[in-house]
């Protein structure tokens, strides 16, 4: 019985189906807010207020011709979109949504979550190289350099939270916040800023959309992917956006907790989760509208000159407090 329940949780709510549904809605929200900030209307026609537009885009791409160029490394080229989507969905299962712990929860799962993000980036590097396209190669090169830039500050900011909660288990991190205050309010504010910035780089969004810079290298590492594969990669991006917002919520905003009426937790927790992830999404989208794209050397420079020292400062600060 328990096994069946867990299986249902993984497949439907709050598992894979929920993640996919939410991913489409969050892409729509992202596009809509971005458009509003730019004085545009954004998606409008498909469904009420264009809410079905991301889904329509996905279906359309699925129906498009799927071209595999001769020069590509075919096994890699074909497998990578699926691997990428699987990785991001796996991450989602670890996030706490209907409970203070995720569907999959174990001691040290924070490290697993961070590792998943790096793995997705490595998939991207392989995707670029396996395409054997000049633009893709440059894109992959840039993705690798960018990983060097943002990975360490992001890990340090997550580590500082680990020190605060005295545990690398997301469940413990959330429960400490439930019992005391959100880490965002206290000493974690620097870490939160770093986490959001690095998240922007992980998601390859402006000002860090360097690996797929449209005007420079066409679509970067994505250039050769078309049809179903492109659809899966785009879906990966959406799920990753959701996953990153969810992780930020779990680490800094007290996870799905909030004022609780006893007995209603399974209903209230997801609502709080949605509200908080929406807040993080709003931050990420606003950042996207504020800047021009940086150059890769400027990005790595910025990261090592400012982000890494601040992240180290954050760890020291937290260490002193604890």
């Amino acid at each position, binding site marked *: 019985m328990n096994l069946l329940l867990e299986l249902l949780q993984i497949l439907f709510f709050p598992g894979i189906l929920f993640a996919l549904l939410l991913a489409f809605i969050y892409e729509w929200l992202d596009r809509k807010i971005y458009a509003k900030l730019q004085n*545009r209307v954004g998606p409008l026609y498909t469904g009420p207020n264009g809410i079905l537009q991301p889904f329509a885009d996905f279906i359309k791409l699925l129906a498009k011709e799927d071209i595999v160029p001769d020069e590509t490394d075919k096994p890699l080229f074909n497998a990578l979109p699926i691997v990428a989507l699987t990785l991001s969905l796996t991450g989602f299962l670890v996030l706490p949504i209907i409970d203070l712990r995720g569907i999959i929860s174990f001691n040290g799962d924070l490290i697993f979550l961070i590792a998943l993000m790096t793995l997705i980036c490595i998939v991207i590097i392989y995707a670029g190289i396996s395409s054997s396209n000049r633009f893709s190669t440059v894109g992959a090169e840039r993705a690798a350099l960018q990983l060097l830039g943002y990975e360490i500050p992001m890990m340090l900011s997550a580590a500082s939270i680990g020190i605060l909660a005295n545990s690398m288990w997301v469940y413990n991190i959330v429960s400490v916040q439930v019992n005391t205050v959100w880490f965002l309010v206290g000493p974690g504010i620097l870490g939160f800023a770093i986490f959001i910035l690095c998240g922007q780089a992980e998601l390859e969004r402006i000002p860090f959309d360097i690996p797929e810079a449209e*005007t420079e*290298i066409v679509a970067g590492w994505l250039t050769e992917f078309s049809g179903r594969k492109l659809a899966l990669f785009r879906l990966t991006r959406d799920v990753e956006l959701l996953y990153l917002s969810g992780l930020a919520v779990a680490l800094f905003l007290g996870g799905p907790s909030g004022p609780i009426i006893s007995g209603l937790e399974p209903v209230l927790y997801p609502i709080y989760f949605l509200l908080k992830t929406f807040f993080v999404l709003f931050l990420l989208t606003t950042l996207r*509208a504020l800047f021009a*794209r940086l150059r890769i050397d400027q990005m790595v420079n910025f990261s090592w000159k400012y982000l890494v020292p601040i992240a180290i400062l954050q760890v020291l600060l937290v260490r002193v407090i604890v």
Partner: protein
Amino acid sequence: MMQEENLQKEEKKSSYELFFDIPVGPQHPALKEPAFFKFKVEGEKVTGVDVDVSYNHRGIEKALEQRNYIQNIYLIERICGICNVAHTLCYAQAVEQLYGKEIPTRANYIRLLIEELARIHSHMLWLGVAAHEIGFDTLFMYVWRDREVVMDLIEMLTGNRVTTAINTIGGVRRDISDEAKDKVKKGMNILEERLKYYRKVALNDPTVNARCSGVGILKPRDAIKLCAVGPTLRASGIKNDVRKDDSYALHDEVPFNVITYDTMDVLARVLVRVDETLESVNMVKYCLDHMPSGDVRIKLPLSPPVGEAVSRVEAPRGELIHYVRSNGTKNPERYKVRTPTFGNIPSVCEMLTSKGDYEVNIADIPIVLASIDPCFSCTARMEFRDVSKDKTWIWSLEELKAYCKRQGSL
């Protein structure tokens, strides 16, 4: 033997990893029109560039010889959509020189007014495109939203948003009413405020500065040597503007400053254009206040007398030259157009080549290319190519005629 082959293969592979060519064009998101740039890159560093602009040869000069002078106005207008006013103005001036007739002052004022409105619209369009090239889509959307103000004014004054068809031989086709004047003034006030804001953005935004300053350097000496024109030249600190140096259409009466910046980079080109747009706003206001009453057009016979004429106009992108030769019939005998982008191509190749300390990244390519405000459809030139011998050459008209005769006699 096998080993040698393997060794060769490996050598090839490693050199491929070090240097390879990045093709930009004929179709590329950074280019709005077909042109081909082949960049030799070493990692992210650009070490060389090869250019081919002939993807869109439309044979306009030949077509002009087969139509009469009135029909040609509409063909000339379609050389370039964005600088159509500059083209028709240049054409009308050249043909009027053939007749040796002066046009009414009010017509000249209207010509200048529309020319400056078109400059505002062109520069704002460019600013938006430049913002898009550096990935600043918010600025892009904002600039293009505000550009609608001037587009609406142009539509109100001429009947069309882009292809204005206002200049004609002997004057302009429409007069400006007093109500229209008030509307234009109001629009100019809005634009002035917005442009000052964009100037502040260009100067203060850290990411815009990071992407634009120190990028795409063109030294004054190179700029002169490579015959750069327009804002590209002025951003290298050289005071050169056809409107000042060889005034036409009352530019000597309407006061304005020639904007120059001496930082020689893309940021300088942005600022030159923004400041020029502000100057244009002031010129439009001046025109509205000082416009005399009177006719806007004189009637001229269909066929101009025998002769030839050259006319120069400062198009938004730089100096535009038209040459016309008449043999007394109703069609021109020869027509020649030199567009500003063609003059700027050697300069852009110079900007895109790394030399010594000056390093060009792949990421800089789009914004540096865009910084000359390229318009490639006007640049196509014909050359001959023998594929079997891999030889390319260009013929003068006389040589081409001689070749045709030879072919005819065979």
